[in-house]
C-alpha cells in the first residue's frame, strides 16, 4: 500500500503536499471563511481545474493552449443549458409569448425549443455532455494540428483563434445561447435550490473533492510510463518519435485530458455562481488561466491550485482597494513570473524550501550537540 502511494502520489513529500492542500481546502477554508468568501474561493477553485489541466499539457506535454476557456465555457454552457431548462418551466415563464422556453429565446422571437437544446432535459445526457462535448472538440483540434506536426507557438495561436471564433458564435447566435448576457438566473438542480447558503457549502465541498480527484488522477498519470514519455517528448520530440512512439496520439490524449478537467471546472462554476457567459470563452480569460498555472509553477499540479488562489485573492483584494493599480500589478506579475520565475512558486519552494528545512534541521542538530557537550 505504502509503495503504491509512493509511486503514484510522488513519495512522502508529494503525499504530504496533497494532504496539506486537502486540509486547507476541506477544513481550514470552511472554518475560517464566511459563506460569501467561501463561495468566492469555490469559484476560484473552478479555475484551478483549468490550471491543473494546463500543468499537464503545457508543463509536461509542452503544448501551450491559449484556448482553455473554450473547454471551460463549453462545460459550463452544457450545465447552464440543463439548469436553464429546469428554471424555465411553463409556470414561472407564463408572462412570455411562448411559455416554457428560456426567457432569452422568447426575446429573440423563437417560439419553439431548438433541437440543440432538447437533449438537455436529461440530467444524464448533460453530465455526459459536460465532459464529452469539450473532449470531442479537443480531440478534433488535436488530431488536426498534432498529426500535421504543427509547431508549439503556432498551436498556441490557432487555439486562440478558436477561442475567438467560439466567442463570436456564442455572442452572435443569441437566440440559441443568450448572447453577450449569457445564460443567467439559474435556480435549481433537479429541484434542489442551488442558491441557498447550505447548497453553496455542499457545492463547495463537491467542487473541492472533484479538484483533489483530478489532481490525484494527474499525479497518477505523471507517475506512469505515459508521464515519462510526455516529459521525453517535450524535451526531445524527434527522439521519442524515432523510438517508435506515436507522439501525436500522446499529445492529443493529454490535450483532451486538460480539456476534460477544464470542462468539469466550468460546470462546477455554473453551479456555484449561477450563470455562464461568453466572457469565459474568449482569449482574455484563457490567457489569465495560463498565468494562474505559471504563477503556481507549470510543473506542479499542487502549485497550480496555489497559484490560482493567490492571483485571484490578489485580484479581489486589489480591485476592492486600488482598482487602478490592479492592471499594473497583474501585468507586472505576468512579466516578472515569466522572466524570472519560470517555475513559479513551486520552483521557489523547491529551491528554497529544502534549504529552509535543512537550515532548521541543522540548527536543531547544533542545539542538540550543544546540549550534549557540557
Amino acid at each position, binding site marked *: 500500500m505504502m509503495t503504491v502511494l509512493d509511486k503514484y502520489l510522488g513519495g512522502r513529500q508529494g503525499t504530504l503536499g496533497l494532504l496539506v492542500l486537502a486540509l486547507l481546502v476541506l477544513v481550514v477554508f470552511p472554518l475560517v471563511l464566511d459563506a460569501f468568501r467561501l463561495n468566492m474561493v469555490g469559484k476560484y477553485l473552478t479555475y484551478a481545474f483549468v490550471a491543473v489541466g494546463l500543468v499537464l499539457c503545457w508543463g509536461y506535454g509542452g503544448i501551450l493552449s491559449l484556448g482553455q476557456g473554450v473547454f471551460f465555457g463549453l462545460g459550463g454552457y452544457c450545465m447552464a443549458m440543463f439548469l436553464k431548462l429546469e428554471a424555465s418551466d411553463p409556470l414561472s415563464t407564463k408572462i412570455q409569448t411562448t411559455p416554457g422556453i428560456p426567457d432569452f429565446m422568447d426575446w429573440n422571437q423563437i417560439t419553439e425549443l431548438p433541437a440543440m437544446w432538447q437533449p438537455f432535459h436529461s440530467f444524464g445526457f448533460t453530465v455526459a455532455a459536460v465532459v464529452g462535448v469539450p473532449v470531442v472538440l479537443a480531440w478534433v483540434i488535436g488530431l488536426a494540428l498534432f498529426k500535421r506536426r504543427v509547431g508549439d507557438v503556432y498551436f498556441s495561436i490557432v487555439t486562440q483563434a478558436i477561442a475567438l471564433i467560439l466567442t463570436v458564435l456564442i455572442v452572435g447566435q443569441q437566440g440559441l445561447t443568450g448572447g453577450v448576457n449569457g445564460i443567467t438566473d439559474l435556480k435549481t438542480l433537479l429541484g434542489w435550490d442551488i442558491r441557498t447558503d447550505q447548497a453553496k457549502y455542499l457545492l463547495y465541498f463537491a467542487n473541492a473533492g472533484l479538484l483533489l480527484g483530478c489532481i490525484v488522477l494527474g499525479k497518477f498519470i505523471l507517475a506512469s510510463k505515459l508521464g515519462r514519455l510526455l516529459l521525453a517528448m517535450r524535451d526531445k520530440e524527434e527522439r521519442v518519435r524515432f523510438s517508435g512512439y506515436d507522439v501525436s496520439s500522446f499529445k492529443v490524449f493529454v490535450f483532451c485530458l486538460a480539456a476534460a478537467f477544464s470542462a468539469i471546472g466550468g460546470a462546477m462554476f455554473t453551479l456555484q455562481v449561477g450563470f455562464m457567459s461568453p466572457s469565459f470563452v474568449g482569449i482574455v480569460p484563457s490567457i489569465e488561466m495560463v498565468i494562474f498555472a505559471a504563477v503556481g509553477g507549470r510543473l506542479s499540479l499542487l502549485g497550480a491550485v496555489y497559484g490560482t488562489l493567490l492571483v485571484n485573492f490578489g485580484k479581489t483584494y486589489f480591485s476592492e482597494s486600488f482598482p487602478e493599480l490592479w492592471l499594473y500589478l497583474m*501585468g507586472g506579475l505576468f512579466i516578472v513570473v515569466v522572466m524570472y520565475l519560470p517555475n513559479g512558486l513551486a520552483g521557489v519552494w523547491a529551491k528554497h524550501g529544502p534549504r529552509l528545512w535543512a537550515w532548521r534541521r541543522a540548527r536543531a542538530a547544533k542545539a542538540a550537540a550543544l546540549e550534549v557537550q557540557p
Partner: protein
Amino acid sequence: MAWLTEFGAIAAMQAFNGLSVFCVLLLMALGLAIIFGQMGVINMAHGEFLTVGAYTTYVLSGLTLHYAPSLQPYYFFLAIVVAFVIAGALGWLVEWAMISRLYHRPLDTLLATWGLSLVMQQALRSIFGAREVSAELPEWLMGSFSLTDAIDIPRNGLFTVAVTLLLTGGLFLLLFRSRWGLHVRATMQNRVMSRAVGIDTRRVDRMTFALGCGVAGVAGAVFTTIGSTGPTAGSLYIVDTFLTVVFGGAASLLGTIASAFAIAQTQSISEFFMSGSMAKVLTLSAVILILLLRPQGLFASKVRK
C-alpha cells in the same frame, strides 16, 4: 438601363470597399507578421503599439491646433512619422528590456508581452483617461470624391490604400533588397552561422522588433481616420490581426498579404448579402475550417517541425 448603371456604381464602390478592408487588415497585420515571421516572437502587445500610434496622432492634432493652426492641413504626415518613431522607440526599449532575455523561450514571450499589454493599457488609461478621444482631422481627409453621380470614393479609404501600398512596398524593399534585410533573413534562417559571418544578430533582432512596432504605430495613426481612439482600441483590432497572420501562414509576408486579401473579400462580399454579424460568423467559420484542414496556414511550410 438606369438600374444597370446603378448596379455598376454599387459594384464599383463595393469593390473599393473590399480593397480598403484589405488594406486595413494588412496594415494591422504587417507589423505582427514581420516580428513573428522574422523572429518567431509573438507580440501580444501589438494592439497597444497601435493605440500608441493613435494617441500620438491625437496629441499632435491638439498641439498643431493650439500652436500652429495654419499647419493643421499637413500635420497628419508628421503624425505618421512621429507615430512610427515613438512606437518604434518603445518597441526598441521593450526588446531590450524583455524580449531579448526570452528568445530561447518563444511561448514565454507570448505571456510576457500579454502582461505588457495590460500594463500599457492601464498606463494609457491613467494618462489620457478612460474616455474615447477624437483627433481633429484635416479637411482634405474627410468626405469623398464623386466620380459620377452615384459613385463616391471615400478619401480616407484612398489615403489608407496609399499608405498601405507605400508601407508594404517599402518593407519589401527593405527586407529583400537592402543589406539590412539580408542580415534579417540570414539571422532568421541560421542564427549561429549569421553570427559566425559577422552579423550582429542582437542588433538585427532589436531593429526588427522596433520596425514591427513602428509599423503598428503607423497603422494606429491611419486608423484615427476610420475608427476610435481609446485605451482599449487596440484590442478591437488585435483579434482580426492574429487571424490574418495565422491564416496566412505565420512566417510568410506574402502569405499575410494573401490572407488579408482573402478574408477582406469574403467579409466584404458576404456583408453585402447578409447581416454583418452573419457575415462575420461565415468568414470566421471558413477560416477555422481551412485552418483545421491546413493548420500551417495558406503559405508557410517552415513552421513544420
